[in-house]
């Protein structure tokens, strides 16, 4: 009887393997571009036709290959990138599996031209369906050019699965965009059907973002930089008003490799908290660098996933850094029409903040809560924009005075979080800094007199107006108070001992096996927040008491909510129900529109507002503060 099992023919085996690596033209682009980057290319061109279905070419000026290596490169498991299994533990290149070229060659007609710096001639290799069709010498510049024609010509099933041209092209563009963000020092040239889509010169990370997303979008970004011994994180996050309705503009890189990671994504999203209206997602591009030994990229052939040695630490790190960055930046919606602003005006604003290094010195020392906060570096242009914005707070500071005292006895601050604009704090440690901006103003030829202190008015018993140097600040008194109370209540929740209301009719809750083990695991924590739970066995728990501050009814649902909350985000320590209570209580207890406030009350309100962790939006996500710049006023009055 003939044996049933036999070894597959190499070409068939390769086709199967190709299925994992080469799913669509975009994956080919990704593999080839990664090779170029691993070969230290400084200029990469991506040329596609018919969304890469018929023609796709990646040209680089990298190291190139010798003629022997060129041939070997198409063998399965052939790579120059790793050699030993130790190398696999600490991958520093983008590729390492040694599969890409073989896989691509198995399902397309591939032509490779490559030349090393010191070689006399280049090599041209043509392979179709893993069969060598041509191997000759050719003349060319240093580097490698790989042309992939008629992708999936021999696997019709796969070809039929390709999406429309628009979709496939978008996928390719996404790949190129991600790479371009991660490698700003590389020049990128990208055309589709002879139409140039991107032509990017080597530049700084900031410059690359400006080139890709435009000046206007860039202005809505806040720089993120944080470094610890274990890892560092750099990048930009979007201000809440630049949030999008989808997650498309979220770029996460680990050691400059684009990856998808739900946990980190959630950490960023969570850091925004109520800054975002429901259904909106923040823009971000973040690169986390850490020792490759602490991560495992070898999870999936497409390398879009990474396993972390310690994911929850990274989660906390990202969460706190983003939160801090948001808290330290001016998020006041500005009513200027940015598109109208000329670059000269923009520069002028920069000039005002020249002496800013004084103010942006690290402020961690007095609180010790934030030892690792690196401040925005003054030399880079973005930081200057940010600090020129922050300069407003100096005026606020002068307006309302006594900020230091407030900070000193501010008890609402949570550990490890910067809860108010940096300037408030620095003013405590560097008193002279408050004078500096005004000297700077005069130096800059600014005619505006020093602002009269206590310039504050209430209009319609509803809004508080106050003058700041760059314009007019408008505060909605109700939401401002709401924000203050909300944080106060949450702080109280955290500090007070939990109380448990025992139930008359214990609720028997049947959980699924995973929830049950979660309850088991979380039992001490659940007790801490006020649940009285008895494990009954067989995936059943009996709820005998609930947190006393939770509304009567749907006790079971509250437990379920808490569990879900834990599943989605194991680091959250509060319960949603409490958050809701805090919100509704804050809303009810806050002063209403229509309540008359005297000057002292207004000052205290503004003082307290800017002492909260997020003075710019109320717990429900409505804006608290709106700023109208002098430029905008001038424009409105036709003074420009």
């Amino acid at each position, binding site marked *: 009887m003939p044996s049933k099992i036999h070894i597959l023919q190499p070409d068939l085996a390769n086709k199967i393997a190709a299925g994992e690596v080469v799913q669509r033209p975009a994956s080919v682009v990704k593999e080839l571009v990664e090779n170029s980057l691993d070969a230290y290319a400084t200029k990469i061109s991506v040329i596609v036709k018919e969304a890469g279905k018929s023609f796709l070419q990646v040209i680089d000026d990298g190291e190139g290959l010798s003629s022997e290596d060129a041939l070997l490169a198409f063998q399965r498991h052939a790579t120059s990138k790793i050699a030993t299994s130790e190398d696999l533990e600490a991958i520093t290149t983008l590729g390492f599996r040694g599969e890409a070229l073989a896989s691509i060659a198995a399902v397309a007609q591939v032509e490779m031209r490559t030349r090393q710096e010191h070689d006399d001639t280049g090599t041209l290799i043509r392979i179709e369906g893993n069969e060598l069709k041509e191997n000759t010498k050719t003349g060319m510049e240093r580097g490698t050019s790989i042309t992939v024609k008629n992708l999936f010509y021999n696997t019709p099933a796969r070809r039929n699965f390709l999406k429309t041209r628009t979709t496939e092209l978008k996928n390719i563009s996404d790949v190129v965009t991600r790479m371009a963000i991660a490698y700003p020092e590389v020049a990128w040239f990208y055309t589709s059907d002879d139409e140039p889509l991107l032509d990017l010169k080597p530049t700084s990370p900031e410059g690359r973002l400006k080139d890709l997303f435009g000046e206007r979008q860039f202005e809505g970004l806040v720089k993120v930089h944080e470094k610890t011994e274990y890892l560092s994180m750099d990048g930009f996050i979007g201000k809440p008003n630049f949030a999008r309705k989808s997650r498309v503009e979220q770029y996460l890189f680990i050691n400059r490799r684009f990856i998808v990671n739900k946990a980190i994504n959630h950490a960023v999203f969570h850091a925004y908290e109520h800054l975002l209206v429901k259904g909106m997602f923040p823009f971000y591009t973040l690169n986390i660098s850490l020792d490759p030994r602490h991560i495992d990229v070898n999870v999936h052939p497409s390398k879009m996933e990474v396993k972390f040695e310690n994911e929850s630490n990274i989660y906390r790190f990202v969460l706190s850094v983003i939160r801090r960055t948001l808290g330290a930046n001016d998020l006041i919606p500005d009513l200027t029409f940015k598109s109208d602003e000329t670059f000269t005006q923009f520069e002028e604003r920069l000039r005002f903040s020249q002496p800013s290094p004084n103010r942006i010195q690290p402020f961690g020392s007095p609180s010790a809560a934030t030892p690792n906060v690196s401040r925005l570096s003054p030399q880079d242009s973005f930081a200057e924009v940010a600090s020129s914005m922050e300069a407003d707070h100096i005026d606020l500071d002068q307006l309302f005075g006594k900020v230091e005292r407030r900070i000193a006895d501010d008890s609402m601050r949570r550990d490890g979080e910067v809860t108010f604009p940096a300037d408030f704090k620095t003013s405590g440690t560097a008193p002279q800094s408050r004078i500096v901006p005004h000297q700077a103003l005069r130096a800059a030829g600014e005619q505006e007199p020093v602002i009269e202190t206590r310039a504050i008015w209430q209009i319609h018993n509803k809004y508080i107006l106050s003058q700041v140097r760059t314009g007019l600040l408008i505060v909605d008194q109700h939401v401002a108070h709401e924000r203050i109370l909300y944080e106060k209540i949450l702080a*109280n929740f955290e*500090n*007070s*001992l*939990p*109380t*448990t*209301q*025992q*139930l*008359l*009719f214990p609720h028997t809750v049947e959980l699924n096996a995973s929830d049950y083990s979660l309850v088991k695991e979380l039992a001490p924590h659940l007790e801490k927040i006020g649940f*009285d739970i008895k494990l009954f066995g067989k995936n059943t728990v009996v709820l*005998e*008491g609930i947190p*006393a*501050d939770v509304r*009567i*009814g*749907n*006790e079971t*649902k509250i437990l379920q909510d808490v569990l879900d909350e834990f599943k989605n985000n194991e680091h959250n320590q509060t319960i949603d129900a409490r958050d809701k*209570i805090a919100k509704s*209580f804050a809303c009810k207890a806050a002063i209403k529109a229509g309540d008359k406030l005297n000057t002292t009350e207004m000052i205290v309100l503004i003082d307290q507002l800017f002492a909260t962790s997020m003075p710019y939006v109320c717990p429900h996500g409505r804006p608290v503060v709106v700023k109208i710049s002098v430029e905008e006023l001038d424009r409105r009055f036709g003074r420009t």
Partner: protein
Amino acid sequence: MKFTVACSELQKALSKVNGVVPSKSTLPILENILFSLSKNMLKLVATDLEVSMSATIEVRGSEDGTIAVPAKRLMETIRALPDVQLVFHADLSANKIKMITETGEYILMGESSEEFPSIPQFKVEDKIVLQGDMLRRMINRTIFSVSTDELRPAMTGVLLQVKENELRAVTTDGHRLVRINYTGLKTSKLKRDIIVPAKALSLVAKSAEEGDNTLSVDSTHVQFTFGNTTLTSRVIEESYPNYESVIPLDNEKTLTVNKDLLLASARRVALYSSSTTHQIRCSMKKNELKIAAEDADFGGEAKEKIACSYTADELEIGFNSTYLIDILSHIDSDEIEFKLSTAVRAAIITPAKQKPNEDVLMLVMPMRLNA
């Protein structure tokens, strides 16, 4: 449609049915009261689709008809008028209502009676007779602990059980429970237990009259009849939680205390309890009850001592002060008795001396004390 009536008469009838009119409704017609005149009898009907109420009064009718009258404006007008004779005249084709007194004329726009939802037909299947004052008393003692949790509809009503000459009412919201028994009734029994929505019963408590009132039941509704007024309500078709099983029988620590003293004391101390949990602690040792509260949020605290009679082991137990105050203010007895067991088990509160034919039991779940 035309009739003449004394304002005070009309007002009396209106104020009974007006309680049913919903203050806001997606169905605007429900904000009307239906007037139907047949000879000298005027019938007023109001409904919120769950509960309907009708009252009949005698008027001097001259032209039969029926029309829906806007409840709020009508009610306010009648209330504002002195007790004068009022001629009510409705032009049914235009739905225009004219009310004429000797000195004034008030015109308001009504709605066609056809718009008004029809009141469910009620077929009496079972019937008992209850004394008005007892009914009122029973409702007032129980209704405060009805649940407002729409997810557990059974608990949003009052459970009524009528056994051999005994009526029992039970309410609970899952944190406290009230059970009242009346014995010695000259009535038979109801075939099944019914759960009556709280709104219906609070209206009953307002309208119940001295003397005999009837309670009748059909398959889906319950009807109360007092004099010329009837109230019909849908019953809550859910099974009531097994309340008997949660009333502990073995609470052996007994504390007897003056109710007014305790109530006043609890009210004062509660002012210092946390505004979110309302927790107060009761510590009892030999013949002494100590009530204390502290408000961690705003840093206040209060404590009081009350003399009581208590001989069991020392016990400290926490309560939601609102629950405790609610319960104490619904017991009318000079002395009350607590029956307790541990700090996490239900506390039973009863009048030290029950009224004749009445047995009141109130129960409250404690709050677990932390540290």
